[in-house]
């Protein structure tokens, strides 16, 4: 395979980042960096090194129309994906009624595995059609149980990943779930790790979980956490 020598890659990456690499040369180099991870990392190194210069430029306020245009260009109608958060919130209300029903059912069957009849926390995760897909409960402060109510059929080379969605900040992965109706996934949780969490959601990620440590797809189901008693 033809490769750029390391020195040449550095020379090109530097001029690419500074901006003096122009025209066809720029386009060609961009194409190389897309395919060659080593070249891409050299470009990134130069971007990281040089960009602080740009961050000291005196700010200039853009006109308000810029944001209006951005908003119209990312309007839901033209967006290829349903907004994660929009859908999470929409499902919330629909799921609430079902959640209550399920909590009753859970309470009936729970003693089988738990020390206490009453769970500390329950979340019913439902899909966009409000059908419950997974039930999450916490009987001990550090052990979470996840049961899939109805498994997903089309799972070619994908894993189900469970996310804690805190009130503020980025979602946190809680781990992968088994896509089977009769299996309960037990997850060891650090104590108090759900304290700031309002919602749980499940996404379909590449096999083995999200490579980015953040959800890469819209959730297949989600739901609010209902605290049953104080932990």
């Amino acid at each position, binding site marked *: 395979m033809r490769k750029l020598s390391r020195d040449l890659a550095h020379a090109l990456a*530097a001029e690419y980042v500074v901006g003096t690499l122009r025209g066809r040369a720029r386009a060609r180099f961009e194409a190389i960096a897309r395919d060659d991870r080593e070249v891409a990392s050299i470009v990134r190194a130069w971007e990281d090194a040089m960009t602080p210069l740009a961050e000291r430029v005196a700010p200039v306020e853009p006109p308000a129309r810029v944001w209006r245009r951005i908003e119209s260009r990312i309007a839901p109608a033209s967006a290829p994906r349903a907004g994660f958060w929009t859908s999470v919130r929409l499902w919330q209300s629909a799921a609430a009624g079902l959640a209550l029903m399920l909590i009753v059912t859970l309470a009936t069957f729970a003693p089988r595995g738990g020390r206490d009849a009453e769970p500390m926390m329950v979340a019913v995760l439902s899909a966009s059609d409000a059908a419950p897909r997974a039930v999450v409960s916490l009987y001990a402060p550090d052990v979470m149980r996840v049961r899939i109510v109805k498994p997903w059929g089309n799972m070619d080379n994908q894993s189900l990943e469970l996310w804690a969605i805190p009130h503020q900040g980025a979602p946190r992965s809680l781990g992968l779930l088994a896509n089977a109706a009769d299996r309960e996934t037990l997850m060891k949780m650090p104590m108090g790790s759900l304290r700031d969490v309002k919602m749980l959601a499940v996404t379909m990620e590449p096999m083995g979980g999200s490579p980015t440590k953040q959800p890469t797809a819209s959730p297949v189901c989600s739901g609010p956490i209902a605290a049953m008693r104080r932990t």
Partner: protein
Amino acid sequence: MEPGAGVGSPVNADARQERLAALLARTALGDRAAFAELYSAMRSQLFAVSLRIVREHGLAEEVLQDSFVNIWSHAGAYAQAKSAPATWMTAIVRNRSLDIVRRTREEPDVDDQLSANLVDESATPARDVERRAEAHSLNECMQELEPEQRQSIALAFHHGLSHSELAQHLHRPLGTVKTHIRRGLLRLRDCLMRLEGTHT
């Protein structure tokens, strides 16, 4: 040229980057409120960066729009970029600005000596410039350059001047300008690697 202006306190800078990273993560999930906050946090900085390069309000507005639409749809890729969030977004805006400059101030400026020089070589991984080189290392290294090297690099970086525009602006032959940039960047790289060595 920006002289070595004060860099914000590292603690605040880190907190800001963390906040931006969280906003980006939420944006990746389609959280419009987070995206709006991200725009508010970065718009005036990024608009200024673009304005310097494209030099027209209308074009800079176009760049900002395109860049944020791009950020909206590719925010998920940020997690893999491993750069600081502000750096990642600034790079997007700078690239879009340079694209637009290329479109509007088109001129063939292919540096054949560099671009046509593809060689066969088995990759030998060596040390990279530290990815998150501190701003002060960069300033330090910029000061080590010859004044003409420093001036050429800064003009190109901030104002998007091409080799031939630089030659015109600095009243220098094209070849001389190219050499200044190339040697200056080489020295910059050596200096950044050396500093990285002393920091670790």
